[in-house]
């Protein structure tokens, strides 16, 4: 068990003022067997009208609208989460599992994915073991390299390239799991020591979601805080916006997770 202090800080700076700005944020850690939210502070600027909701993937969302012109949009979420090691997350919505078994546009199969798929021979083992085989195959195939892929890059494109970031690792792993009809989902979250958000995957084994991190070729443990779930990255972006104005924009995102000093293991 650990206690982790986290901060999700995002600033959008517009060269010219924008208006009619709508946003949906999925940057609030949820509660489950693996993590408990101890404290949480949310700051959003400028003022907005909106509310909270839970989406169809179970994510906590803040959504809102800023009518007046503004040049900066700021989101700052801080809090403390208590995490557990080696705990699976129970699924209470088993009837919804089906949607996680089939490819999405971002995780559709293609020639490069088939090649990796064929390399990993893993007949008849448990979901846990199959997950490990697939994770290893993905990890072995990929070179971590930022800047060569975008948020819209598909699993197949990333696999063909052989390079990418955590989102690409996750998408490729999802595509391969789904080829075997293993229900699996994309997880966006935070990890101790990284400066940005992280992504990994969870596989469902008899109602228990097990977390794999293909970028690091390991199981996600109590250094991980999950924020949002979806079939792929497109289902549950951490922040999403829509505004009027023809202008350039700059985005600064800073994510920090530190172990609380008074914590014990």
């Amino acid at each position: 068990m650990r206690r982790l202090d986290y901060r999700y800080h995002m600033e959008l700076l517009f060269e010219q003022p924008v208006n009619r700005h709508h946003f949906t944020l999925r940057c609030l850690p949820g509660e489950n067997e693996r993590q408990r939210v101890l404290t949480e502070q949310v700051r959003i600027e400028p003022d907005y009208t909106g509310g909270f909701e839970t989406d169809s993937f179970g994510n906590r969302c803040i959504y809102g609208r800023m009518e007046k012109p503004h040049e900066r949009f700021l989101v700052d979420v801080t809090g403390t989460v208590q995490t557990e090691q080696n705990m699976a997350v129970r699924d209470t919505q088993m009837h919804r599992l089906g949607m996680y078994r089939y490819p999405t546009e971002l995780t559709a199969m293609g020639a490069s994915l088939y090649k990796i798929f064929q390399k990993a021979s893993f007949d008849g083992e448990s979901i846990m073991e199959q997950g490990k085989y697939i994770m290893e195959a993905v990890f072995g195939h990929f070179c971590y390299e930022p800047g060569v892929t975008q948020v819209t890059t598909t699993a197949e494109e990333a696999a063909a390239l052989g390079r990418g970031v955590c989102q690409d690792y996750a998408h490729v792993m999802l595509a391969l799991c789904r080829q075997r009809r293993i229900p699996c989902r994309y997880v966006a979250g935070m990890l101790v020591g990284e400066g940005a958000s992280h992504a990994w995957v969870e596989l469902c084994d008899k109602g228990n979601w097990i977390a794999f991190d293909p970028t690091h070729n390991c199981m996600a443990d109590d250094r991980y805080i999950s924020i949002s779930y979806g079939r792929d990255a497109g289902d549950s972006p951490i922040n999403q916006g829509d505004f009027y104005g023809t202008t350039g924009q700059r985005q600064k995102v800073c994510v920090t997770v530190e172990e609380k000093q008074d914590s014990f293991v």
Partner: protein
Amino acid sequence: MQIEELYQYSDTVNELLARYGVKFGIYKNGTFNEQLFPFDMIPRIIKKEEFTCLEKGLKQRVAALNAFIRDIYGKKEIIRDGVIPEEFIYMGSGYLAQCEGVLPPKGVFTHIAGIDLVQGKDGKWYILEDNLRIPSGASYPMIARTICRKSSPALFEQNSIVDNRDYAKLLRRTMDYVNTGGHTVILTPGRYNAAYFEHSYLAELTGAHLAIGHELVAENDHLYFVDYSGKKELVGAVYRRISDEYLDPMNFNSESVIGIPHIFDIYRKGNVAIINAPGNGVADDKGIYYFVPKMIRYYLGEEAILSNAPTYLPFYEEDMKYVLEHFDHLVLKDVAEAGGYGVVFGSEMTKEEKKKFVSMLKEEPRRFIAQEVIDFMDIDIYEEGKLLPRKADLRAFVLMEEEPVVWESGLTRFSRNPDSFIVNSSQGGGFKDTWVMAE
């Protein structure tokens, strides 16, 4: 007075249709053109008893489809019980994961269903297709009737034809039934949409406001219409004529500029009705069509009153075998396409094309359905002083209030090309009024 005498009013009627701008927009080579929707004076006539039977069958079908959509975005019992394989849900393009667990006001998904039927030469009706997203077309027979009654009052005096001009009233009741408290709005993508005439005409007749996306705003978990004096008026029902994809850039296609950001979030909270419900595409997919009779049995415990055209799913090995053996007698449809596209006849393919198609079929069996070619009953049209037989279908409209209600008319579309089976207006077809006889 005989129905045939209607011909003599042809010019008057067409003049009036032009006067009221009864048009259909078409994009051709990238430019937008508005054409008058060709109207043929000879109505399709359906006898009272025949319509009563259709009515029963249509109500049953739509009740089952509504139950199905509710189940799919809810408990999914029909999958659990093995009636429909789950790949037909999750791999179809109509399923929207965002709709999981969302129950619309009063549990209505299929507020306005357009069910396409054809009549075989033997007189038997077959369901061709269910349209549960944004079926259009009701306004055309409605205004045509208005005009024909003006042109030839005697004919309508002497024949007891059920008045179809109550469609607006039915529609209004359907919208009011689910309204969560507030104004009723018809949301249009704008005047360059193919069916803009219909959007504006229905707004006029129902008294709803016609609006484009940015006239409506989401605020504090509710939807508002912004008045020109700056007041915000609560909206309780949105009859949207925009597809799911473009409805809400914050929840669906983020590139959409014609939608309303966050309308879906408000809908999820139960604070506005969206007509028809998002996600309905899961039930009107060509692949799902095959399963509708099974749905009727599953949800209603009844046998389907109206038949499907005999359909085969190459997904099932047995059906694949049949399809390959009888390829030349079948029509093959790509489940992802609509509007008459992606439809090919086995008999019309060259050897080479056939080979290519079969290998595609084997590669992706779930993508296609095969159907027996129904020998349509021809309907006469009047052209240049002559009566000519043409293929025609019937789009029946079923509106959902507490119970489904069938509009006692329908849109009869015909193919202008004598050899064509494709009647879609986007492919240059024309339309007729549909008379349901009162006695």
